[in-house]
């Protein structure tokens, strides 16, 4: 399943926003994404979990260059997307697509479903000759579980789950290789969520897609991902296969997250680690290890040294200076 050469390679990606109210002071920045690196192979699903404000949504947008990165590289098929002009980048957009969180906000209410799906073909006429549009729209709609008649309807005539299907069809319309899904299930009802998870898995197999799925729901990430990255305050604190992360979490944060996960089967509940407080402001992150202020295993030296993401086991990396196994 894993190619030697990664499809997508992120190197030291950084996104800093100017701090609000400090327009002139360039040193005051919101460190939304700070030195993030990971790889994504063809056909693979990488799950990214973390609390809100940890920078996972910014990461998704930065690697698609919907938000301009401050520094770092996004190597797609070996080509650095960061260096491309906006015109060149637009041409690459067909290969990288995104599925959004809010199915109500992600579809233009003034366009019919057909118009939404065919918009990329209007922009890049080379993708599909006009004569095939209709057929292709029908195909996409039926593929995501809608009917061909729906092409002439407007988004508000659909339920949330159906709209998320339209969003998926839109992402598929350009034959992408990578789809970044930003909280694709969080706005959906439980019974619909499962349908969409199944749909995403089906089309991954059919089209050989790679996914980056961002979610806060740990059980969904466990179900969908091959590998999982855990983010905290703009950093990846742990990354590994799903078995490694869920079976043997190394980072105290990962451990806390997993223990906070509500389980339906109450019998096998682990000892719960309840984190104190909330995520600190990315404007002024703690020194050293960023997690130390909430860490149940924090030591005085955590404030001095910034832990690096180090390989602990095969492909299992963790950024904590107090892991010694």
């Amino acid at each position: 399943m894993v190619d030697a050469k990664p499809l997508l390679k992120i190197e030291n990606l950084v996104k800093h926003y100017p701090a609000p109210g400090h327009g002139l002071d360039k040193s005051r920045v919101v460190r939304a994404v700070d030195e993030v690196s990971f790889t994504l192979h063809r056909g693979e699903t990488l799950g990214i979990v973390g609390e809100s404000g940890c920078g996972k949504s910014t990461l998704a947008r930065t690697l698609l260059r919907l938000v301009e990165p401050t520094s770092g590289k996004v190597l797609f098929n070996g080509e650095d997307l960061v260096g491309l002009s906006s015109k060149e980048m637009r041409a690459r957009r067909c290969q990288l697509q995104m599925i959004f969180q809010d199915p109500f906000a992600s579809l233009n209410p003034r366009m019919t479903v057909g118009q939404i799906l065919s918009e990329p073909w209007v922009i890049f006429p080379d993708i599909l000759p006009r004569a095939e549009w209709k057929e292709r729209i029908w195909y996409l709609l039926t593929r995501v579980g809608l009917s061909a008649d729906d092409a002439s309807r407007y988004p508000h005539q659909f339920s949330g789950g159906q709209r998320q299907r339209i969003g998926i069809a839109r992402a598929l319309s350009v034959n992408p290789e990578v789809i970044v899904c930003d909280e694709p299930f969080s706005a959906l009802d439980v019974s619909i969520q499962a349908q969409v998870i199944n749909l995403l898995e089906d089309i991954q197999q059919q089209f050989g897609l790679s996914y980056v799925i961002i979610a806060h729901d740990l059980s969904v990430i466990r179900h969908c991902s091959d590998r999982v990255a855990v983010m905290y305050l703009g950093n990846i604190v742990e990354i590994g296969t799903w078995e490694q992360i869920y079976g043997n979490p190394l980072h105290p944060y990962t451990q806390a997250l997993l223990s906070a996960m509500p389980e339906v089967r109450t019998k096998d509940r682990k000892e719960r680690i309840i984190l104190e407080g909330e995520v600190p402001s990315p404007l002024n992150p703690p020194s050293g290890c960023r997690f130390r202020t909430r860490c149940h295993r924090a030591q005085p030296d955590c404030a001095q040294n910034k832990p690096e993401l180090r390989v602990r086991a095969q492909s299992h990396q963790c950024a904590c200076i107090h892991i010694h196994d």
Partner: protein
Amino acid sequence: MIDETASTTDDTQRDASIGYRDIIRALVRDPLVLVSVIFLTLLILSAIFAEIVAPMDPLIPNIFASRLPPLSYATGLDGTEQLHLLGTDALGRDMLSRLIFGARASLFVALVSVFVSGVLGTCLGVIAGYYGGWVETVVMRAVDAFMAVPSLLIALFVLFIIGGGLVNMILIFALVRWVVYARLARGITLSLRETQFVEAARAIGASNARIMLRHILPNMISPLLVLATLEIALLVLAEAGLSFLGFGLVPPEPSWGLMISRGREYMREAWWMITLPGLAIFLTTLSLNLIANWFRAVMDPVQRWRWLM
């Protein structure tokens, strides 16, 4: 709790869009607004077809038939007896005909000004909101500057320099009123720019121009329409005000503003000369305001259910 009902009763109400069948239903339920719509429609039609509708030439004076009260008969220039339904003005011109032709001038000034300022302001507002940075700074500074000086004062000042008249008036109104659209358009653009469907459009490679035209602009049509309707009402009144001060349209072109401005000298002896055009302005602006108010309420997801009931 209204929000709650809206979202639980029907998903469609989470959207800004609303079918026009709903609008028509709501219209029928609101007789006052319906009457306003009919009145404005008739007014616009008669303004367009003024030559056909108006019984007489609005420009040819008959100084021997001046200031006749409504429902008077007078011998016209061609020697025939003519009925002046709404009386005549100081020059003996038929009031009804002048009101009809005056509607054309007044509405033309207002509509064209609103169109020009609306297009200009919306474009600048969208561009400012979308690109941000120095473009936004420049546009919004200009907006602030125009907002700091009251429109009527600018209009007066500039008309004083360049002189009155139809074209100048339209230019001035466009110059002073574009800011309201720019402010609105920028505000909406700022919020739309961050929406996921705009991001989605960017993700499929849509150019900035396309995003602005196809994704942002269509989603601000309703509030812009409301604003434009209110602006038409405002400009009809502004035309009257400027004509009062003598900076407005140039006679003999009949315009409502000019008619009441002239008519005020005869207010006590020939009430119809000021009251009829005053009434025309009042009814027109009232209708526009009613419609705008109603439309805004219908479009407002919070209030809508009340109006659709």
